[in-house]
């Protein structure tokens, strides 16, 4: 192979070398630089040096010629002080070097602190352990990062180069040849003369797409879903338990008080459909929802605390107005009027649990909710 007549990197190689080389032959003064600086001669930015080189070697590569003709180097137009003054270049070099060294020291510091630093277990941020790790890690990474950027900005030759874009889209004859090849394949496969094969292939291969479906349905335990959504853990005669496991008795709640209660099941906190809010107000303040007369017991009213909008627990009870607020999207329910919606995106009132008191004076549910609790879904009647 003959050596390339022109170095593809000629322009940069000329100008590169060390910064000192360029300083020995300082760049042209700014005024001159400006005259040539716009660099807009056709020759300058249309010439693609290595395209020429490749062509000379007989393998012109239209698609991705590595071509880069120099238009105008940025530092010719705006010479950096590091280019003009060896002293400044030395200063810049020291800056970069010290940043790299800073990284080294910070890595050492990080390792030492990681091994021997006092981690105050259980304290937020582990005391000073985590912040100091962070600072050292930032210095370690930032030193290398800032050093590299500074090196490139202050000391590296960074000429503005021009590269031709390859034309997008293939030439027409290329496209035609490809279409022909595809057509030939279709002909060779005799697709046109065997429509039966094409049709049955479409059916057979297409049906493969159905294969994942049973698996997906299996993941969903689809056969149980509707019953699961309609029921909760509450059953007839089940006592209302506080989160500490104590059942609530008649008289435990003062007027205006509110209590979260749960059914008597293992891990009641995980029965996400069952939490209930037991509220006591003066009986004359309460107007039951139509059809829910008798669900309350002597001014004690039990609502599902799962919001009918998106299922957040409705926990904020304003005693004076009897408003129940969902903190997620601000749906507001009026507890004194059957928990009807008075504001926000919820569309339905909170379901009410019918309660009474057993012979020992404890509150019990009269049964499950008479409607699905929580957010709406398609199959909900």
């Amino acid at each position, binding site marked *: 192979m003959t050596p390339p007549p022109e170095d593809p990197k000629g322009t940069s190689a000329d100008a590169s070398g060390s910064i000192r080389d360029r300083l020995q032959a300082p760049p042209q003064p700014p005024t001159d630089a400006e005259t040539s600086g716009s660099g807009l001669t056709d020759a300058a930015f249309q010439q693609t040096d290595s395209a020429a080189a490749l062509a000379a070697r007989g393998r012109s590569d239209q698609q991705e010629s590595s071509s880069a003709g120099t238009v105008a180097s940025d530092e010719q137009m705006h010479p950096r002080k590091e280019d003009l003054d060896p002293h400044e270049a030395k200063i810049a070099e020291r800056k970069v070097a010290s940043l790299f060294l800073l990284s080294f020291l910070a890595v050492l510091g990080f390792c030492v602190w990681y091994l021997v630093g006092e981690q105050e277990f259980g304290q937020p941020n582990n005391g000073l352990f985590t912040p100091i790790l962070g600072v050292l890690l930032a210095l370690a990474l930032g030193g290398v*990062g800032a050093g590299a950027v500074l090196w490139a900005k202050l000391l590296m030759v960074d000429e503005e180069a021009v590269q031709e874009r390859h034309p997008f889209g293939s030439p027409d004859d290329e496209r035609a040849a490809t279409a022909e090849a595809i057509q030939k394949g279709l002909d060779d496969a005799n697709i046109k003369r065997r429509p039966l094969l094409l049709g049955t292939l479409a059916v057979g291969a297409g049906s493969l797409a159905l294969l994942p479906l049973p698996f997906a349905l299996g993941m969903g335990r689809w056969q149980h879903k509707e019953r699961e959504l309609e029921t909760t853990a509450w059953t007839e005669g089940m006592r209302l338990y506080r989160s500490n496991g104590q059942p609530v008795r008649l008289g435990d709640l003062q007027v205006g008080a509110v209590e979260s209660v749960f059914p008597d099941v293992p891990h009641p906190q995980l029965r996400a459909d069952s939490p209930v809010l037991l509220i006591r107000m003066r009986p004359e303040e309460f107007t039951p929802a139509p059809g829910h007369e008798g669900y309350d017991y002597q001014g004690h009213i039990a609502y599902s605390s799962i919001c009918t909008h998106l299922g957040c627990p409705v926990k904020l009870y304003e005693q004076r107005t009897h408003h129940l607020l969902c903190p997620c999207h601000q749906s507001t329910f009026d507890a004194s009027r059957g928990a009807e919606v008075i504001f926000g995106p919820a569309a339905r009132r909170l379901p009410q649990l019918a309660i009474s008191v057993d012979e020992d004076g404890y509150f019990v549910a009269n049964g499950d909710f008479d409607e699905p609790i929580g957010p*709406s879904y398609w199959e909900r009647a």
Partner: protein
Amino acid sequence: MTTSGSVATSRPSRASTLSGNAANATGRWVDDRLGSSNFVRRSLNKVFPDHWSFMLGEIALYSFIILLLSGTYLAFFYTPSLAEVVYDGSFTPLVGVEMSEAYESTLNIAFDVRGGLIMRQIHHWAALLFVVSIVVHLMRVFFTGAFRKPRELNWVIGVLLLILAILEGFAGYSLPDDLLSGTGLRIAWSIMLAVPVVGTWVAFLFFGAEYPGTEFLDRLYIAHVFIVPLILLGLITAHMMMIWYQKHTQFAGPGRTEENVVGSRLYPAYAAKAGGFFFLVFAVLAAMGGLFQINPVWLYGPYNPSQVTAGSQPDWYVGWLDGATRLMPGWEVSGLGHTLAINVIVPAVVIPGLIFTLMLAYPWLEQRFTGDRDFHHILDRPRDAPVRTAIGAMSLSFYLVLWISGGNDVIASIFDISVNHTTYAGRIALLLLPPVVYVITKRICIGLQESDKELVHHGIESGTIRRLPSGEFVEETVPLPVPYRLALNKVEPSEPGHGNKELASGEPVPHGAPSDGGHGDMTQWVDTEPKSKKGFLRDKSKRRAAERPEPTRAELEGSGQQ
């Protein structure tokens, strides 16, 4: 046989010769096996245009790498299990509390694994930065028209990356099984339920049982650490390869045409800057991870379906959906044994679905309405395309109203106003603000075009007042330097019949040129008079391919060189 290591150093010393030999040998070894010299050389010489806004996508890429690194470390300690355990770790306030293994292992990462907390916080901050940088990068691409032919496919990939990044982030902050994440998951479950016809099937497919069930955490975990990252990785790779193949877009400027790329070669300075920038991004995230607390799950406590904290907020990129659900009135229809939760599906399914569909389709919509099916490698400035910019600003205002409404309870408590009023204000703003923003933005763009026209036509005001023989006073103006002219002139391709006659002839007009014009002075940098007086009110829909070639630029360059 040439090798990549054949560049002669200008000062051969013993050391550099040795290293040169080593490089030569390595290069030859590799090239003998891969034949990679040509590829390597072409890659090293690849030219990248430079602009600060081109770094936004880089930040997203680097955040993703940092997410992979920090996430891998976290996976060594995290347990995706809902099995109940009693906490017995270093964080005393929670000792003795029943919680899931997932939450316990998250607490252990924070308090008992050396360096675990900083790694988790880096991971969380990187996730926030990942989505931020994707969004801002997407805005840059939109407002500069970088999505136009031939880059529509990369735009589509970018939008898909945004959607996946949001899902990935949501899956990630749902893993600790703390009170906040459980609340978010329950909302996700409820949204799935609300989908018409298939809602319950979809919800049970993801959760395996009625919420919470016992399986969702395993599924969420495998989605978060394997499925979604794998798709992200594949799409990011395709995104990068397409950028590489199609070459980057560039802003208008001297010597920049639709047929070339003007910028820095990849090697060495650009690579040094980009590599350095990766470490700088990492350094910032490391500092944030060490110094700024994020998502302190130990304060929220373990998940309990009957509890919730007031003022609970999702991560920022989910806030707009939260706001949409807050603003929606409580509409629901039921009948024939079915319920349609309009109050849920409109804000949580229809609106995001519509927004992302419009985003995906935007390149083709714009082509359809402008008739512009040309290749574009020169970027628009936002003012160049007033309608597009106005659409973008309008969409942003819509998004911002939703996003701010996601925190309307926080705003209400800070400013001591009623939550209801903030909701009403949000509803009104959502309907009124976008059209207003559209009109204002379009006016601003057109105004900026007018001021560009002033500059190009009349030059910069010099402050020198001259008195004409007639007694009239005029201010002399200095013509705009060529690079600026070239940048500005892109906004006004010549339009036949609209230009000044003598200018349309293409001859440089001496009027306004410095008298000593010629080589070697400022006149190289100034041009004389505009080539056309093309309307700045140009209607995008009327723009046609025929107007797009840049005869004006060529003329400008020609005249500037005289």
